[in-house]
């Protein structure tokens, strides 16, 4: 569904991502974990066309991203950085707006309000919502049109425990229905609950997977990062 082949992009500051190769298949939840600044958001931006690769190629639905016709994006739902929601509009108006731009139907908006427990807040302006409720509006906007490819950057940010469970159920249900899901997170326990595969990212590179069945995920996570840092340091030292 979404494939990266040796993708790289460097910013002028020197930060960026290098040699990213992986794929997310239909029915699969792939989680991306790494520390702040590891390049997770940059990877997601590359996957959604917000950045163009300077090396390699991103393919979506089997075609190079830059050659994909606009109409194919009806099958994509994403939340990266900030929800597609405007402060002067109500929660419902924002969902209707997002639905129209995604080629969705009005019935999906009513369903999304109910699914994401936003019915009581439907007439409240987005600017007056708490950060957790804003995040739920953003998640509803990203998924209400039933996308085949879901890309979410830190989706559990600001969510209360009930909403985290709701998000987990939604992602698993959609993956069971055949959607491909790429999600980044800082929460290792949460990732372990939903992901079929966990990809580790460090210093702009994918450094392999993480076995979520292990006894101490945090220890394993930091051990892998430390080993990668040491390996890079030894390579850079003449």
């Amino acid at each position: 569904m979404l494939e990266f082949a040796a993708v790289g992009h460097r910013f002028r500051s020197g930060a960026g991502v290098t040699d990213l190769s992986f794929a997310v298949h239909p029915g699969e939840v792939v989680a991306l974990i790494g520390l702040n600044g590891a390049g997770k958001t940059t990877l997601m931006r590359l996957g959604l066309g917000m950045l163009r690769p300077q090396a390699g190629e991103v393919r979506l639905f089997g075609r190079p991203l830059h050659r994909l016709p606009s109409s194919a994006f009806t099958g994509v739902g994403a939340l990266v950085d900030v929800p597609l929601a405007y402060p002067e509009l109500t929660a419902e108006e924002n969902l209707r707006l997002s639905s129209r731009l995604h080629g969705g139907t009005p019935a999906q908006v009513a369903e999304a309000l109910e699914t994401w427990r936003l019915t009581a807040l439907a007439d409240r302006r987005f600017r007056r919502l708490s950060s957790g409720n804003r995040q739920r509006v953003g998640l509803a906007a990203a998924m209400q049109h039933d996308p085949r490819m879901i890309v979410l950057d830190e989706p559990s940010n600001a969510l209360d425990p009930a909403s985290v469970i709701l998000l987990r159920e939604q992602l698993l249900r959609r993956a069971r229905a055949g959607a491909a899901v790429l999600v980044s997170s800082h929460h290792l326990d949460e990732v372990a609950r939903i992901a079929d595969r966990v990809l580790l990212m460090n210093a702009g590179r994918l450094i392999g997977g993480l076995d979520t069945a292990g006894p101490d995920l945090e220890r394993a996570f930091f051990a892998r990062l430390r080993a990668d840092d040491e390996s890079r340091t030894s390579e850079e030292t003449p």
Partner: protein
Amino acid sequence: MMGAAVSVESLKLRRSLVGVITTCALLVGTVVVLAGITFGVAQQRSDLVTKLGSAARLDWAGLVPAATQIISVGSLLGFGVMLAWMFGREFGDGTITGLFALPISRGRIALAKLAVYALWTGAVGLILALGVLCLGLAFGYGSPAEGVWAGLVRLWVLMVLTGFIAIPVAWTATVCGSVLAGVGCTVGLVVIAQVTALLGVGGWMPVAAPALWAMSDGSAVTVAQLGLVVVFALVFAVLTAVSWDRLQLRR
């Protein structure tokens, strides 16, 4: 999908505080200033009468030129602010990320914004021309003669053309990713319009041509020069759409 984008942009404009305030400032502000000027002329305030020149009259021949003068600068400022906000806010609010990976291209979204903006400038121009008409009738200037109707139509066309010459603001706000950069561009356009008009090259300078045309009752600017205004607007509209299409979010 273009229809969806136009409807979305229209909703955003109608519900925004910036949209409401800018519209009110242009409509109410112009009418209030005109009423104040009329009151000043009626009071024979010599400083005001000197500044207004031939427009210092208590009839249609005073009201319409005064409205044209106010609108030529005021509308450029107002339209520029509106464009700066419409395009720059997506970057300031961060909503630009949500405008990627959609079944409508960003270039078309930019064109939808410009379409809504053009409709808005046309509507504001029409209401303002009607407002000036109502003001004249309220002042007891009597039924407008044919020349007055022509002046009111020119007033509306001036607003539409001023809307055109403000389009570089949309491009600047996009390239810089900032509302303030768009506002800066607006101020720059006003300065260029004033300076080129003073230097006498206004007719061939698209930014100055609409005001010169309206203030000279259509005599100081040729059709070719007005055509250049349309070309100028189209060039910047295309530049804006292309910039949106090629946009990358590098931090």
